[in-house]
């Protein structure tokens, strides 16, 4: 059974204070690791897909990296609009089912 653990549960940052979120995973064979952003009252919004160790992807102030055991989501110089819950998910079969972590809630203060 796939397992996904995210840390920390919550992260409070000052505007401009860079930080990283962690996603540790245990799967039988990784088909893809996904990062989503979820705002209150909304469905998850897709950010990145990572497939193999060493892969990196960037989007604005966000950068996702992947190793064989974990993924990091780096937030560089965050702004208040980056405040959200960030979810990590994995897929290990060819069936597109996702196993999610509990998420990290990020609050960025101006």
């Amino acid at each position, binding site marked *: 059974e796939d397992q996904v653990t995210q840390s920390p549960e919550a992260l409070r940052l000052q505007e401009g204070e860079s930080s990283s979120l962690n996603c540790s995973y245990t799967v039988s064979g990784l088909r*893809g690791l996904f990062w*989503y952003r979820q705002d209150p009252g*909304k*469905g*998850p919004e897709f950010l990145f897909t990572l497939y193999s160790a060493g892969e990196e992807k960037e989007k604005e102030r966000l950068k996702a990296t992947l190793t064989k055991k974990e993924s990091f989501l780096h937030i560089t110089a965050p702004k208040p609009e980056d405040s959200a819950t960030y979810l990590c998910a994995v897929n290990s079969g060819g069936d597109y089912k996702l196993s999610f972590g509990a998420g990290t809630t990020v609050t960025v203060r101006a």
Partner: protein
Amino acid sequence: SAVISQKPSRDICQRGTSLTIQCQVDSQVTMMFWYRQQPGQSLTLIATANQGSEATYESGFVIDKFPISRPNLTFSTLTVSNMSPEDSSIYLCSVHPTGNTEAFFGQGTRLTVV
């Protein structure tokens, strides 16, 4: 990507009743899923909605409690039956457009059972 519309966006229901949630996609998709997000928790897969056949349920979820319909490639419904307060959650529809490995989600249905 795909645009997914869910209805209703929220509802408050009496225990013992049932609620049907609709999910409409703006393009034909093969893979469609229903997830539950309980208060303060992450998403848990309920079932895979298969077009033209019965849904495939995950461990802990049964068809009598969560019947699913998938009449075509753009539409699905999830019914939450004989509701109890423990069913209070956000229910989310998700699709994998053909050629995409990533999933896209609807806005969710926030259900409160009183």
